[in-house]
Each structure stands twice: as structure tokens, then as C-alpha cells.
């Protein structure tokens, strides 16, 4: 599903964030990505969703080189990927409901369907009663969960989560990770970047470690 072939990424004005990364994440597979802060975890995820372009090497999505994808096709690639951002990336001027609904609105789903699915997703992340609030009225963990609901609402084939438990308490973190595992069991390809080594270790999934711009399969 996702394949990196000797990928390097250099941001303008800084050193190499990734120097030589190769891996394959099969369709329906799940993996965790760890590494110290600044190791390039977010960068790796951004390369998949085409939020960044690789400096060297190839990123293949579903067998296609994303670098060759024209700008016109980028939105359609992104719709197949649900991303949970480290910094939430919510629409500050829209209510929780509308934030979660956004991918469905973009896909042109009917309003009744949107309503049904958004409610279901909010229920799943325990925020149903906050659907009318704005993001700034929520705690960090709650905002995180809005982002999660938005990422899964459109039932994407691939789920990328960047530090999804960063703002959650241990119990909620464990629940969330288990939720990702269950999603994966249902066929979703999942890649989760996380610092929480102890939690990850308990989940019995492959763990990849980013270090000095390189990936080692743990």
C-alpha cells in the first residue's frame, strides 16, 4: 500500500530530516513508528499524505509514485488517507460537528448521511454532547479526539496518526491504541507515530524506529 524507496527529505535551511528511509507497509498492515523528538516521524507521515515532497527517492502509494501525481490528483489521494495531526489542525471558526463533517462535505455526501455518520463518529470518541462547541472550548485531549473522528469519518483506506495520544490520559491512550488495532483488523492500513514506547510494546504490532534519518525495523 505504502512503499518508501531510499527516501530523503531536506527542509530548506535545515539538515536532512530523513536521510535514507525504505520500508513497505502492506495493505491492511499496521505499524508503529517511534523515535526521539525531531527524528522525522511527522516528516515521514507528511510525505505519505503529500503534505511534503521527498527530496530524493520514491514514495509509492498503491503502487503509484506520488511524486508523479499531478496537483489535480492530490486531493483524491488525500481522501484515501485519514490523517490525525500532531497539532490537530481543526477549523477554529467551525463547530465540532462541522469539523468532523468536513471530509464528507468535500466528498459530496448528503446531509442526512453526514449527520448520521458524524454523530456515530462523535459517539465513538465520546464527544457527542459537545458537537455544537467550537474547538477552542475543548481541552487538548478533546480536540485531539475531534481530529480522530474527522480522520476516520470518511472510512479511509489508510490511517496515519501523528502522536494521537499526546494529550490523552493513560487509560484513554490505551483505549485509543486498541481502537486503531481494531480498525486495522477491519482492513484499514494503519501507521501510528508515537513516543509511548511502553504502550506500543503491549500491542503486539511491528515497531519501526527512526534514528539519525534512518529507519530500523524493531
Amino acid at each position, binding site marked *: 500500500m505504502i512503499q518508501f524507496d531510499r527516501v530523503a527529505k531536506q527542509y530548506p535551511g535545515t539538515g536532512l530530516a530523513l536521510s535514507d528511509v525504505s520500508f513497505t507497509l502492506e495493505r491492511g498492515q499496521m505499524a508503529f513508528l517511534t523515535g526521539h523528538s525531531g527524528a522525522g516521524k511527522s516528516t515521514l507521515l507528511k510525505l505519505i*499524505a*503529500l*503534505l*511534503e*515532497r521527498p527530496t530524493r527517492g520514491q514514495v509509492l502509494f498503491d503502487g503509484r509514485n506520488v511524486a508523479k501525481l499531478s*496537483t*489535480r490528483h*492530490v*486531493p*483524491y*489521494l*488525500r*481522501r*484515501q488517507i485519514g*490523517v490525525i*495531526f500532531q497539532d490537530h*489542525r*481543526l*477549523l*477554529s*471558526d467551525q463547530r465540532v460537528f462541522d469539523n468532523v463533517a*468536513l*471530509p464528507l*462535505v*468535500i*466528498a*459530496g*455526501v*448528503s*446531509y442526512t448521511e453526514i449527520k448520521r455518520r458524524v454523530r456515530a463518529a462523535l459517539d*465513538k*470518541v*465520546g464527544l457527542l454532547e459537545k458537537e455544537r462547541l467550537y474547538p477552542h472550548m475543548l481541552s487538548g485531549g478533546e480536540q485531539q*479526539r475531534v481530529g480522530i473522528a*474527522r480522520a476516520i469519518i*470518511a*472510512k*479511509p*483506506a489508510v490511517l496515519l496518526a501523528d502522536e494521537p495520544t499526546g494529550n490523552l490520559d493513560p487509560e*484513554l491512550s490505551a*483505549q*485509543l491504541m*486498541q*481502537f486503531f488495532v*481494531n*480498525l486495522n*483488523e*477491519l*482492513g*484499514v492500513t494503519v501507521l501510528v507515530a508515537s513516543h509511548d514506547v511502553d504502550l506500543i510494546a503491549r500491542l503486539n504490532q511491528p515497531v519501526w524506529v527512526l534514528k539519525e534519518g534512518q529507519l530500523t525495523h524493531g
Partner: protein
Amino acid sequence: MARPRKNKRSSQQVGRLAVAGDGFRAWSRHHGYSFFSSLGELIRRPVSAGMTVVVLGLALTLPLGLFLVVGQISQLTQGIDRFNGLSVFLETSVTEDEAIRLSSELSTWSEILAVDPISPAEGLTEALGHLGVAGTGFGPEDNPLPWVLEVSPAMEANLEALSKRLMEETAIEQVIVDLAWLARLDLLIHLGERVVYVVGVLLMLAFLFVIAHSIRMEVHHRRHQIEVMALVGATPAFIRRPFLYSGFWFGVSAAILALVFVVLAGWGVSAPLRGLADSYQISLALNAPSVSASLGLILGMGCLGILGAWVAVSQQLSGAWPRD
């Protein structure tokens, strides 16, 4: 959060989303969304949106008002063309009987629509009335005026040829056609129309740029939102559309406002204008534009708004789009 078993269906639905909402229904839903989100944006920021609309409305009012005034005046001169025919002065020796006979003879000419004989006494009264010295006791015996025939030419008549032919009549002393005056007025009106076009084009450009500028600010203001939308898979068209609707709303509301301004201005000048018109015995009023013209204006300005928004958004989006 951990009730995944209820989520059985998602495996079958995975990957189908890309085509889930294609087609006309999705398209119309997108438009519905853009329509309301653009309105919402304007309503959410009523002060800045309102100020923009007022500026746009004022920019439109000037050319629109000028256009109406010039239109009125040119209509008026068409009236003058017809009524202000020829003043045919007869010899002072001509008697009443002769004058009446001549006038009925002239009215049979094909180039002439009607002849209205004015006796020296009537002429005097009218002249004195205009001078404001009516009833000062001039007797008919002192009246220096000749009989005058007010000749209304047929619409298609050539005034110069007609006046030449009239001059051949022995009883006719002089024919006065103020052709030069009419020609000059025509030129003035023509100039006025040109001025309206030039001012109109300039103000249209201003209109376009004010809208483009407002939308630009709006895009800039919503940079972060735009980025988020792009991140979750919105197409540039989807992102652009609410702004195009905003431009449309700006144009439409500015046009409506300008029409209101013009109608108000029409009321404001109606009393003195009527006084002026009455003194010339003509009807002159700053009429509001017709319904179809108003609708045309509103739609046209809406389209101009879309154009302005397009220019602004396209130019801004290329910068706001996250590293593609």
C-alpha cells in the same frame, strides 16, 4: 471509544469513498455548501462586509445616476425635435384672413404635420408674460408683432429643405429653425454619453478591484482554514467556490444598494427638477431604471463580483496551497 465490533461495515466500505459522492448530486451539494458558507462568512463579519458593500454601492451609484440623467436628457431632446418645429414669421402687412388661409394651405403639405397660427395679440401676451410684465396696457394698435405660424414638421421631414420651400412663399418674411442649437445640444448629449461610459468603465474597474481586494483579505484571513481543507482532500475548486459566491454576493448587494441610492437621489432632486421642467412645459424626472434594467444590473454586477473574486482567489490560492 473501544466499541469497535459495532464498526463491522467499515471494512467493506474502505476505499469506496473516492467515488462515493461523484456526479450531479455531489456537485449540487458542493454548491449548496459553498452558497451557505459564503453567506455565513459575510454575516459573520458584517462590519467589514457591510463597508465593502457600501463602497461598492457608491462606486456604482455615480455612473448609474449619470447614465439615467443623460438618458433622460436625450429623450427630452427627441421631444424638442418634434415640438420645436419652425417659427414662420409672416409679413406685417398680412391680415388675419390671409394668415389663416396660408396656414390651412401649409397644413396640406406632406412635410408638415400641423400648423398653429399665433396672432400678434397672442404673441405679445406670451412675450410679455415671459418678461414678467403682463398687463401693462399695450393696445393692439401698438403691437409690432406679425402673425406667426408655428409649423410642426412631419417626423421624416428635412428641416432645411422645408424652410427653403417656405421662404419661397411671398407672405413669409422669415423662417427660424434653430438647427445649430439642436445640433449643439446633440453634441453635448453625445459628449455626456461618452463621459458616462468613460466614468462607468473606470468605476467598474474600481468595483472589480475593490471586490478582488476584499476577497483577497478574506482568503488571507482564512489561510489556515484553507490549508486544513486542502489537507483533508478538498480540491482547489471546492476551496475557491465559497469565495466566488462571496464575490457574487458583494456584486449583487452593491447593485441593489446603488439602485436604492439612485431612487433616493431621484426623490431628492425631484422637486427642483419638476420646477425646472414646468418652466419649460416639459416633463422631466429622474426616473428609476426599469425592472429589467435593474435585474440586468444586479446580475451583471454579480458576475463582475465573481470575476473579481476569481482573480483574487486564483492568485492567492497558488501561494496558500501547501507545498505541491
